[in-house]
């Protein structure tokens, strides 16, 4: 079955552009576990950093030494050496770092903060902000308007009234039973047809049964689209390939869908490398900041390579796609007793693509204990909601007055970080 044959699902035309101009995509990547912002983009310009972290602070950039941080042309911040693949995007002037970003009303719990950041407010009662975006602007009526990519569980960002699929990868996103197959290669898949018929029957809304049926319909329809999008896809990244991590799978799927013209507007992807570094954040030895036998370093580099692969792979449409990477909180400024760090407050978020302007966003200027939040955590300089909101307004052309709908109770501060003109 082709995507075209699904037009008319739910009784609406397949293309119904309204308030949104369409054609733009936001990909939100979540580093689950509380990524250490001071480690990703170390404040090498601050001597206090080295006092707080005698074992794990990364040394200032030294071109001749791969075991030091990378120079990003900023007097205070540098880049973790394991993120080196991102330098290509950085040097192209298409990447931004917001080093002190947080959910202002957040706390120190992974699970609360992930949920609240996903919901867009300290509330358990509302849908995810990406879902609320889809509800608030008229978009394309398509089962793949929004999606969770690369993993099997729903993300709080994308969950809500508009049901979106979670797709781990193309190969696994299919369902056939030999006893219900006819035609070459199961061209006539009677099982998914039966499922569609059964699940399309209306039932009482807001029940678990309704949710199961709605997800089945979305599943059957997304199967067809994903299969079709992948048919002629090749990764075109100058020799790079995606990894088989959640991030790699998710970005690869996003590239497949976008390059096939699927009207994907919002996607949620996870980048989990073991960010919850309570202990042993670095290995021993002489090459302790870049040693690729150490899993944390290796997976960080693998992720950075996935971002670069994606950046190259979609180079012809990079103006239409913003990738925003964030986490639920940063970590304690002072290292703990086991060469690790505990739960903190603000952390480093970064973005690339679309109108992302180059450089370092609002930042702290000192790690002096007296300027820290509760004397322990890096304070907030950017509310994450403002990053998302600016992308929605500047990149997705969402009317600015909708920001308070996407993020209830929030007053928008425009940091002008997404101001590149294409």
């Amino acid at each position, binding site marked *: 079955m082709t995507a075209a044959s699904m037009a008319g699902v739910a009784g609406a035309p397949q293309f119904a552009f309204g308030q949104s101009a369409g054609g733009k995509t936001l990909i939100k990547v979540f580093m689950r576990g509380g990524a250490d912002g001071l480690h990703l983009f170390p404040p090498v310009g601050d001597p206090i950093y080295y006092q707080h972290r005698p074992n794990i602070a990364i040394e200032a950039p030294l071109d001749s030494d791969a075991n030091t941080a990378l120079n990003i042309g900023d007097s205070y911040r540098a880049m973790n050496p394991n993120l080196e693949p991102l330098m290509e995007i950085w040097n192209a002037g298409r990447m931004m770092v917001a080093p002190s970003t947080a959910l202002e009303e957040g706390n120190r719990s992974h699970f609360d903060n992930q949920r609240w950041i996903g919901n867009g407010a300290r509330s358990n009662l509302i849908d995810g902000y990406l879902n609320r975006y889809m509800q608030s602007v008229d978009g394309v009526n398509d089962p793949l308007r929004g999606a*969770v990519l690369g993993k*099997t*569980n729903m993300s709080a960002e994308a969950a809500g009234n508009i049901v979106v699929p979670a797709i781990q990868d193309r190969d696994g996103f299919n369902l056939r039973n030999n006893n219900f197959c006819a035609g070459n290669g199961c061209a006539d898949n009677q099982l998914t047809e*039966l499922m569609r018929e*059964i699940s399309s029957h209306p039932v009482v809304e807001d029940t678990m049964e309704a949710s199961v049926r709605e997800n*089945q319909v979305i599943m059957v329809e997304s199967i067809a689209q994903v299969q079709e999008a992948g048919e002629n896809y090749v990764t075109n990244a100058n020799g790079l390939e995606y990894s088989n991590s959640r991030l790699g799978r998710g970005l690869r799927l996003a590239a497949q869908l976008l390059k096939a013209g699927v009207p994907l507007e919002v996607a949620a992807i996870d980048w989990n490398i073991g960010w919850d570094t*309570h202990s042993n954040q670095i290995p021993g030895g002489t090459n302790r900041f870049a040693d690729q036998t150490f899993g944390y370093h290796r997976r960080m580099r693998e992720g950075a390579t996935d971002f670069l692969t994606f950046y190259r792979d979609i180079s012809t449409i990079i103006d239409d796609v913003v990738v925003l990477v964030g986490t639920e909180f940063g970590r304690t400024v002072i290292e*703990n*007793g086991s060469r690790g760090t505990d739960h903190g407050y603000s952390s480093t978020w970064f973005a690339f693509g679309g109108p992302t302007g180059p450089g370092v966003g609002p930042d702290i200027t000192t790690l002096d204990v007296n300027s820290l939040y509760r004397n322990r955590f890096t304070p907030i300089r950017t509310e994450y909601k403002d990053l998302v909101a600016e992308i929605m307004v500047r990149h997705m052309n969402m009317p600015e007055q909708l920001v308070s709908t996407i993020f209830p109770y929030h007053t928008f501060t425009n940091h002008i970080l997404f101001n590149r003109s294409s």
Partner: protein
Amino acid sequence: MTSAVQLTAGGTADGVVAATGQTLFGGVMDPMTFDMVTVSVAPSGRTFNVDVAPDTGQFATRLFPEDFASGPARVTLTAASSADANVTSQPISYEFEAGRVVDGVSQALSRITYGPTADLYSRVRTIGFEAYVNEQLDPDNIRNAAFEGQDFDSLVRNLDNNFFRLANAEMSHRMAYAAFSEKQLQEVMGEFWSNHFFASTKDTQVFEQNIIDRQFFRDNAFGRFEDLLLYSARSPLMSQFLDNDQSRAGRLNENYGREILELHTVGVDAPYGDEDVIAVSRVFTGWNFRRTNPNANNVLHDYEFEFRADRHDTEDKEIPFLSTTIAGRSGAAGVQEGEELIALLASNPLTQNYVCGKIVQRFVADVPPANFVQTCVDAWEANDGDAGEILRAVLMHPEYISNVELQANKAKTPFEYAISAVRALGARPVNDNFFGRLREVGRAAGYDQLRFGLPTGLPEVGEAWVNSASMIGSYRRMTQIVERPGEYGIDLQGMIEDAGVQTAEEVAAFLLTIGTADRYSQEEYEAMVDVLKGEDGIFEPMARNERDAFERASGLLIVLPSFLLQ
């Protein structure tokens, strides 16, 4: 039989049937003449033919909620012949009213077991909800000889020091208990505690503790909360999972100190702050473990709890949100601080409330109704945190089986989905590979108890698993199983012979009743009848080989929306 065609079962003597739908069974006096029955349902206006079993004369049909949309339903039966349209019996009519059937059978089978089997369904129907709950809460007196005879514990005997093999073996072990033990509620509750006090192997050699801890929570599923909390605090698996083995006086690691509050006891909404987390972490400094077979090579490493006084913070610890100070102690007495704190936390009302919320979420509704939580808290208070008595109070709450909004309002986790399919289809471990694909059903959906990394444990709420990626993962793997009935001991022909049903309508109703605890929709039933009859429209399992029809039926059952509900 007193007339040419009549109903023999379904509904009460007063003509009341379950508003959620009910199967009606009937018979014709002369099946040689009448091989089908025309059924008309008014006022919903459905008219259709159902098959008559040639040897028994039995037939079945079903009423659905739609048939009662505007009041009572009238069912008219006319026996007929497929060979001659002029051969019909006198029509006979029955009037039915939809009523609330408060027998708790569906609720018991969906929530306190891993799903109905054909045998268990009839048994609970016979003995009733209350008797079954009481029986399940007394596991020592449950006859479990058939299960024990299969010695599934051998799956986790003689393992070598390899986590991959151990994790697979223990997953199979857990699946065997869930699928085949008669002590179903003990297994459900054991899984609950194991997930509440969740821990997994994290970059250490603490492997076997996954098996030992799960067995403890199984054996003590109806034990006292304080004992369970203390056990988990001392577990080497927990210690390495939440870094408490890294924490020492002056070099604190707050991971366990935070999670014992947030996840194990008072819950994240309790009014504790960073100072409390630090104080609690200091109390538990020195709670560690040691290897007990340090010199044995190539065998599983054995560990046991060890309190290391030299790592313990001996100062007093003020815990503001508990309005208490734990007096600091040095030497071996330092361990008493943690034991004292555990006793305090275990009896704290915030803990009762938080843990009761999770128990009610598991057994009643994803959003725990306040009255059930209160019942749970009261029972906790009255019984010193005895989990068996807490469960009895929650399950015996009158609303549990009478409030229709609490029925089929939850979704199965991928683990529950896999096990319930085994039970519904009567699959049996006829060969050594039985558990291999079955493990993948959960894993493909992102549900892997032994490799999950978050201390929250795996989510219980339906919204975590009801999404296309999770569903497609488990559907694909379960489809691979039902495509191979012989390899999994699935024998639907044998099942229907035992049950004494044989027409497409009878078999559809039977399979769906077992699969869904008798809660399924009209379109699911009609699709099931259709796939049994196949393209030629004929289903005659006593006269010809209907293997394809049975494979289609099981293939359909496992992807039906109602099969995913519980």
